[in-house]
């Protein structure tokens, strides 16, 4: 899992969704993502350290994964601190045949290029609506509203407008 999903769901107070939806109840956090999470913890409240939760586990990239990550980072560009987390997530998912959780569009494009399956935070919202909330609109709207309070960039103003669009577009699972 990349940094964005972890910190936004935690800050929104919905970390339990990660645990409830993750295969075997655990998501894997590469060291590069952990560094970014720790940086975010310095700036925001409500983000638990990975080592303190039972639904996330640290991982360190293997040699093979490091090679993949470096090539992904080369494709993503940027400086010394940008996109290290996404690169590590894609590399680990690729090598371990897992699903990458990524919000950044450029990172998703690289996952696609390497044929790595990926989902994002809004996928988790849709899955929560279906699997955890029994297709109940109200907790889903509340979840989206809580995410918006964390300054997560989403193309709508509130949970109601999101839900109305999803309903009209017929995309809800």
């Amino acid at each position, binding site marked *: 899992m990349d940094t964005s999903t972890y910190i936004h769901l935690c800050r929104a107070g919905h970390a339990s969704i990660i645990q409830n939806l993750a295969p075997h109840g655990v998501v894997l956090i590469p060291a*590069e993502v952990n560094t970014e999470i720790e940086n975010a913890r310095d700036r925001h409240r409500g983000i638990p350290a990975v080592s303190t939760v039972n639904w996330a586990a640290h991982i360190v*990239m293997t*040699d093979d994964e*490091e*090679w993949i*990550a*470096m*090539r992904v*980072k*080369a*494709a*993503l*560009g*940027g*400086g*010394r601190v*940008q*996109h*290290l987390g996404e*690169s*590590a997530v894609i590399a680990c998912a690729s090598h371990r045949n897992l699903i990458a959780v990524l919000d950044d*569009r*450029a990172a998703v*494009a690289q996952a*696609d*290029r390497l044929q790595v399956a990926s*989902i*994002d935070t*809004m*996928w988790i*919202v*849709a*899955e929560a609506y*279906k699997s955890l909330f029994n297709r109940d609109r109200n907790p889903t709207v509340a979840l989206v509203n809580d995410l918006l309070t964390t300054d997560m*960039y*989403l*193309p*709508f103003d509130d949970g109601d407008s*999101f839900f109305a*669009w*999803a309903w009209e*577009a017929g*995309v*809800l*699972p």
Partner: protein
Amino acid sequence: MDHVTLGHRVAQAREEAGISQGKLAELVGLDRTAINRAESGDRKLTMTEMVAIAEALGRPLGFFVNDPLPAVVNRRRDLANAPDDTRHDTTQALDAEIELFASDALMLLEMGLITPVKRDQDARTPQDHDEAEHFAAVIRNRLGAADEPILNLGETCDQLGLHIYAAPLGTNGPDGGCVEVTDDVESIAVAVINGDVDSGRRRMTLAHELGHWLCGDAYDAMAVTDCEKMIFSFAIHFLAPRSGVVRVWNDHHEWSNRDRALAVGATYHLSWSAAVSQLRNLGLIDWREHETLLDQEPRKGDYAHLKLTWEKEPKSPYISPSFAAACIEGYTSGRLTAPRTVELLRGTMTRDDLPERPTKTLDDLRRSFAGHGD
């Protein structure tokens, strides 16, 4: 890719940058011994360290970590084994640029941002000058160029699936090189040409590399001398077709032969030596006059005196229009980051030149609603 190869690349880039191991170590926050061991492949470099090293040495990370394409490997092997008289001029700098440009083009191809073209699988290097001229005419007809000058050669190469980067390789550097990006039936090729040499020479090199790509021997440096000659023959007939050259020559019958040659060169954007050679090829001047004219290389003022001018293209930094368009499309669609887009554009644009990204819409979320099992 292994640690030894990576270490060699770091050493190569560091030496080319004129930086000592100690200085590099200081720049990236490592001990000099660590750099020394890494360069000999004795120490693993982590992603974080490699990103810092690439930045310190002013090279894209891809230069260090991308696996070379098979075609690049073949080209390098062929060059190493080629007899001196058939070997393309090359340098480590040109090889590095070709390798990086080919890797970048492959990435854009894999991301669906560049469209491959179908190359004639039966095309082969012409066996004689007549075949070369005929092949050039076929390609010109396909482009609808008849016998008119090809003014935007970069765009023309684009149409034929050859993507170009005119790199700053120095006025005394190599002319250029070309490789196929994949060996699929539908593919693309990339050529890196020296953007620091004269415009006419750049165009001749580019037409030559185009000939290699269209003839299906993009990396065949082992081709016998005659093959290279035939590719050059294709190139000059492609740039300056017989009927057009004869027409320009005859249109200026009241001028001296030197001035008529200037007119041919300016019309078809040829270097002086290429223009004079083509006049001899076409029998418009004899060998003796060819030699005489070659010694009378014109200056800029000679063209201006006759009101002859032409756009100098493709001059460094230059990349193919469709390659640039693919990069921009990748950026505006969010599939490429801004720093990576600028890197891919190779100095032709800055961050401020990139267009505004469209605001994310609800439709961008559709993918998030797929794959939920309903």
